[in-house]
């Protein structure tokens, strides 16, 4: 179909049909992307406040130094170009609303008293940081944004299989996010039982937890709708000639991720429903008999099992780890192949490893529960499966490392992020092994070591992979390159700051400091030697927040000022998304693509260019 006829077909779309309630996978992808980036920023903001208490326990937070200046800067930014409305208006409004939000939070003396953070507020920040980062930040960015935008393009489809369902999935996600945000404005604040929400604490907790559960039900529903859509799209809408073994690794990663979301999320939904019943209808699914709170016996029928919740929760939450990491791995694989100008090493091994990883991730969940007393035999089983699951991860990482061998590497900004992903994810993965062994886990369980381990996986791992994706696909989405200089500042700043935050956590954890201490371990003799690290980690965390500013500026500035791409394929890439016009129109391809070759045909002997697109005969 030509572009002309296509335009005449769709000229009636109104603004809200095109940008708000859009059924186009690309618009939905961008909606997901912007929303999840905002949530990532919010999650980072929450932990930045929280880290003050860890660095300087019991000292008043210098809010006033930030709140009023932020508000004033916000007003100034809005007025910078007179009363003209543009992106700067958005930034200004954002700053003012952050100032108001912080002002609101500290004016409530159940949270902050004389400028000093109360333990309840500390717990709320911790719980909501985890929840927002995982369920509203990384997963929607990896699956909702990249999955939606890139997968249909890479398989040569005109859209997702169910566009209406796709739109519904975004708006259900949006409602879930709004509920989570609203819980901050409850008199007693949001949930404070951690992102894991273990009962009985979460059941006897204030009403913030009910909002958390409701929000989660929406987020889970959104994921389910999305994952059905992805799987059907990948199975049914692949272009002619695009066989399974010709799929880009990113599509494979999304495919397996969708199965994890589809099959692992419902047990958490079940756990959420049961916990909601415990809270609202007074049942005792997770409430044991004879529970006494603050000297008063609880008025519940009892007979429930807190351990049951942990099983249901981790049945989701372990596959969730792979939901966080697989799409990032897929993006890194795409970028490494493209920037080394040679085929990905061991394509088939990587594909089989991803599938095996997806399968195994369903049967390792109880390695989070070794010290619950669930029994030695069960622990041994889960220890064994946990050691087995490290094999495919290592195969994928090795394949990516070997792909670098002998390549003529282009150190573009996306490639820097992708390269940093490899050792950072390596540290994250390898530090996980001692946690998977039952004996060493006794010492390390619930210490800062755990925090250091999984932040290495998720922050300089997943999030770096996702940043790489933003820098890589931004030219396709907007038609302009992101600024290289700002990108490099963002990269090096984030990389150094993250290592200053997360590496000391491993050391503090090995010293035996619990992750749940409100004062960072000040009162414990065994923590004294490692206490100074707390301040260092906090300062690094604030620097990490500062180093996101060049990124935010870059995204907005490059929309108008970025270098225009010279053609539809600025990176000289092989996969199908680069065969579309820039930016891709509604319906994506000008003519239905046919695929003749594998995804990474770089530097093929006898070819005049060093890359051959998949749709070239």
């Amino acid at each position, binding site marked *: *179909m030509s572009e002309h006829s*296509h335009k005449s*077909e769709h000229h009636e779309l109104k603004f809200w049909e095109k940008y708000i309630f859009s059924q186009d996978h690309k618009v939905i992808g961008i909606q997901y992307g912007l929303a999840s980036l905002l949530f990532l920023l919010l999650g980072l903001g929450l932990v930045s406040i929280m880290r003050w208490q860890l660095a300087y326990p019991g000292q008043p937070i210098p809010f006033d130094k930030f709140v009023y200046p932020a508000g004033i800067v916000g007003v100034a930014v809005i007025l910078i170009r007179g009363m003209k409305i543009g992106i700067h208006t958005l930034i200004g409004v954002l700053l003012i609303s952050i100032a108001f939000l912080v002002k609101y939070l500290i004016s409530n003396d159940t949270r902050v008293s004389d400028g000093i953070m109360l333990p309840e507020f500390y717990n709320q920040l911790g719980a909501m940081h985890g929840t927002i980062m995982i369920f509203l930040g990384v997963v929607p960015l990896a699956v909702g944004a990249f999955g939606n935008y890139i997968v249909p393009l890479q398989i040569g*489809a*005109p*859209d997702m*299989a*169910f*566009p209406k369902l796709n739109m519904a999935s975004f708006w259900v996600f949006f409602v879930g996010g709004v509920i989570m945000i609203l819980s901050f404005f409850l008199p007693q604040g949001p949930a404070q039982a951690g992102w894991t929400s273990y009962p009985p604490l979460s059941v006897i907790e204030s009403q913030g937890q009910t909002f958390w559960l409701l929000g989660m039900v929406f987020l889970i529903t959104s994921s*389910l709708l999305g*994952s*059905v*859509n992805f*799987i*059907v799209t990948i*199975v*049914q*809408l692949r272009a002619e000639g695009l066989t399974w073994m010709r799929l880009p690794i990113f599509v494979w990663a999304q495919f397996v991720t969708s199965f994890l979301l*589809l*099959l*692992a*999320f*419902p*047990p958490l*939904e*079940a*756990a959420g*429903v*049961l916990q909601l*019943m415990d809270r609202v*209808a*007074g*049942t*005792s*699914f997770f409430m044991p008999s004879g529970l006494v709170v603050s000297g008063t016996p609880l008025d*519940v*029928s009892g*007979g*429930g*099992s807190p351990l*049951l919740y942990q*099983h*249901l929760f981790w*049945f989701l939450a372990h596959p969730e780890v792979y939901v966080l990491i697989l799409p990032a791995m897929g993006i890194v694989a795409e970028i490494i192949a493209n920037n080394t100008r040679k085929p990905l090493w061991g394509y088939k091994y990587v594909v089989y490893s991803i599938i095996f990883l997806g399968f195994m991730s369903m049967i390792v969940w109880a390695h989070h529960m070794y010290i619950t007393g669930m029994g030695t035999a069960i622990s041994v089983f889960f220890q064994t499966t946990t050691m087995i699951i490290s094999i495919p991860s290592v195969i994928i990482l090795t394949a990516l490392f070997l792909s670098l061998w002998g390549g003529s590497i282009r150190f573009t900004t996306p490639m820097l992020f992708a390269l940093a992903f490899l050792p950072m994810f390596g540290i994250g993965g390898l530090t996980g092994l001692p946690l998977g062994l039952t004996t060493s886990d006794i010492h390390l369980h619930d210490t800062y070591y755990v925090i250091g381990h999984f932040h290495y996986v998720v922050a300089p791992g997943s999030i770096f992979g996702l940043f790489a994706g933003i820098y890589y696909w931004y030219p396709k989405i907007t038609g302009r390159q992101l600024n290289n200089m700002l990108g490099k500042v963002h990269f090096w700043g984030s990389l150094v700051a993250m290592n200053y935050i997360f590496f000391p956590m491993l050391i503090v954890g090995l010293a035996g400091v619990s992750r749940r201490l409100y004062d960072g371990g000040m009162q414990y003799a065994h923590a004294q030697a490692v206490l100074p690290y707390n301040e260092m980690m906090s300062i690094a965390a604030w620097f990490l927040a500062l180093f996101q500013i060049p990124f935010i500026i870059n995204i907005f500035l490059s929309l108008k000022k970025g270098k225009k791409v010279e053609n539809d394929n600025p990176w000289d890439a092989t996969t199908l998304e680069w065969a579309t016009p820039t930016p891709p129109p*509604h*319906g994506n391809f000008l003519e239905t693509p046919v695929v003749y070759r594998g995804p990474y045909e770089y530097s093929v002997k006898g070819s005049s260019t060093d890359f051959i697109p998949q749709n070239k005969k």
Partner: protein
Amino acid sequence: MQIPFTVENREDTAVYNGKLGIWLFLASEVMLFGALFSSYIFLRVGSTNWPDGSSILNIPMATFNTVVLITSSITMVMSWVGLMEKNYKKFSLYMFSTILLGTIFLVVKYFEYTAKFEHHLFPSTNTFLAIYYTLTGLHVIHILGGLIVNGYHLLFGKKMWETEPQRFTNRIEVSGLYWHFVDLVWIFLFPLLYLL
């Protein structure tokens, strides 16, 4: 722009999009109810005094409901057969019966619940009743969802049947798969809660 395989089967996968979608959705539903059934087993095995379900719950009413729901599955298939025979009247008749039977199920369930409430048997009374109300309540929500979708087909389906008959037939097939699943869940729930 036309999304391929919304109506016709893709050659190498031999399904249309909607059918694959509903099977995946049902797979996730199996995990949802599977998790709840597992919770039931976990709680019951760990309990020292699990009550006898058959002495608390009303077996005749549940048996009647089982028959009602199985019959509704049959009428659901027959309504699809009606469309395959290009007989819209047959479809309407059987679809109406399906909805009627589903409603009867809900009415019986309503009387069952209120009878329990009158005897002060609430979810908070004990863990057996808690899981009984949760599982059957979730099942009732599924029935309601099915009734809404089927009601939509019955009331507003005529237009699509006249313009895109194959697509409409597919929709009924997909809704039918869902309806059979909801029926199947009840066939597990009935012995688990009432008899065992």
